[in-house]
């Protein structure tokens, strides 16, 4: 084989891989658009939380130096992407149980396209949800107070955490496989880390053992970063720890998911 034709072949196969990932991404996004419950769950639900906390509990929570709504919105961005990421594992488990993964694996498509398309579409959905939440926040008075670059950084951290939790969910989906079990399992462990964090209330108000946990909690790290970037002032964002958590989670769970996905050939489906 000449060097030229080999280069050609590699170019072709890279082009095909990109097409495969995009096709899978589109297919998954159509699911979000067409399955009404999913759209409702990933959009209305975080909006409800914003309204609930802003107007029902907000009055009872004192936040240092900023209005509760300014304090709340950065946290809700993280909550929306983290809860939403559970759909990655649910979607994979569904594709496994319905034989879609078998169908895809019997095709000459790029091996990684199923997982890449899944997490990519969930990231696109997360960007959409983040923008939506910022819109809702804007309507009730939330404003970025730290300039455009910092605002973009805040959105980046939120989307990065969504992606990180998507990979955790992907691994969960591929190990647990049962759609309902994935749904429940994915929610049960996320719920406490969402609430035992600085997301809704300052950790200083928590009792000692809980505060200790909340301070170590990666959700606190993520929320504090988004909040610091969005609001500036007294809030100093722990950007480096947030990036380490975000990329660290991906570095562990992406290979684990890929390994698990490729292992399916050696066992059952």
């Amino acid at each position, binding site marked *: 084989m000449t060097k030229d034709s080999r280069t050609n072949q590699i170019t072709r196969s890279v082009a*095909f891989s990109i*097409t*495969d990932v995009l*096709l899978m991404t589109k*297919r998954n996004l*159509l*699911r979000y658009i*067409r*399955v009404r419950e999913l759209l409702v769950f990933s959009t209305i639900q975080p909006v409800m939380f914003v309204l609930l906390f802003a107007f029902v509990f907000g009055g009872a929570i004192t936040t240092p130096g900023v209005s509760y709504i300014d304090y709340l919105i950065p946290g809700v961005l993280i909550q929306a992407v983290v809860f939403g990421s559970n759909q990655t594992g649910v979607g994979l488990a569904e594709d496994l149980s*319905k*034989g*879609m993964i*078998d*169908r*895809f*694996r*019997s*095709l*000459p*498509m790029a091996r990684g396209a199923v997982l890449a398309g899944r997490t990519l579409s969930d990231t696109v959905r997360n960007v959409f949800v983040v923008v939506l939440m910022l819109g809702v926040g804007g309507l009730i008075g939330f404003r970025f107070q730290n300039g455009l670059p910092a605002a973009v950084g805040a959105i980046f951290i939120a989307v990065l955490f969504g992606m990180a939790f998507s990979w955790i969910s992907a691994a969960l989906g591929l190990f647990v496989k049962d759609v309902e079990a994935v749904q429940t399992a994915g929610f049960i462990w996320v719920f406490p880390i969402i609430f035992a964090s600085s997301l809704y209330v300052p950790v200083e108000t928590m009792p000692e053992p809980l505060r200790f946990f909340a301070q170590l909690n990666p959700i606190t790290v993520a929320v504090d970063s988004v909040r610091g970037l969005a609001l500036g002032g007294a809030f100093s964002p722990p950007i480096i720890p947030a990036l380490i958590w975000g990329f660290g989670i991906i570095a562990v769970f992406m290979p684990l998911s890929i390994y698990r996905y490729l292992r399916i*050939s*050696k*066992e*059952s*489906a």
Partner: protein
Amino acid sequence: MSGENLSEGISVRGVSKSFGSIIALDNVNLEVTKGTVTALLGPNGAGKTTLIRILTTLLFPDSGTAIVSGYDAVRDARRLRSIIGLAGQNAAVDENLTGRENLELVGRLYHISKSEAKARSNRLLSKFELTEFADRRVKTYSGGMRRRLDLAASLVGNPKILFLDEPTAGLDPRSRMALWSVIKELVKEGVTMLLTTQYLEEADHLADRMVILNRGKVIAEGTSDELKSRVGGSVLELRLGEPRELEQAVKAISGLTNGGIQSNSESGIITIPVVDGTSILVSAIRRLDEAGVKVSGIELRKPTLDEAFLSITGEGGGRAGLKEVV
């Protein structure tokens, strides 16, 4: 190395596969000649799906080799995937897409051009009588329509080798006939096919050869005539005058053969696989007469495929999983 010089069909040598302590395939050997149809028959749990999954690169065998059109199903999996089509045991179609979108997606994933994927999807939609529903979501499809769409999806890539795992399970008689004619057309076009079924009539109708699998082992193979003759000649069929004397009758003749006697209490018909037909016929009549059982009809005939199958899989063993075509 493309392996062009190797067999263009399917060649399975010594393939075994276990799931924990369950031996799903036990040293299976199988050859399918290019351009022919082979039916893989066997009761539930025989290992048919496991073998199909190995041949379509979805599962790795524990040992042995599976070569499809010259490609090793483990080592050359990627290249193999571009020339095979698979319709698995359960319809694998995306509920949230329309029928057309499903076919076009699969087409694009075979890396054919957008326009070609569209053209082939259209052709297949009409071939499987789905044109009318092409732009509806699969969620609204009936089981039979999903099955047809799944089969259409297995053909989008113009496969050289097609694997169909129980393709007509759950289809109504009309759809089944339509599918049979599509399969025959594909065979004329030179497609090599391995299909599994629990319907003997289907295997007889579609396949050039049959391979019977039971508990992970190939227990018989050949054309339907070869399998029939394996039973050892003929079947003696006795029709009782009084069906309620059946038990008595079976008892009277039970010593004539070592097993294989089938009886039906409703029709009062008893069948016995026989080697030396005439002498058994005489002794059967004598014994029944001695037992006082009235016989209204008696016939010595060639076994049906159904009987051949029963005798091969062992009495009762295969019965539970096998179905008649309705």
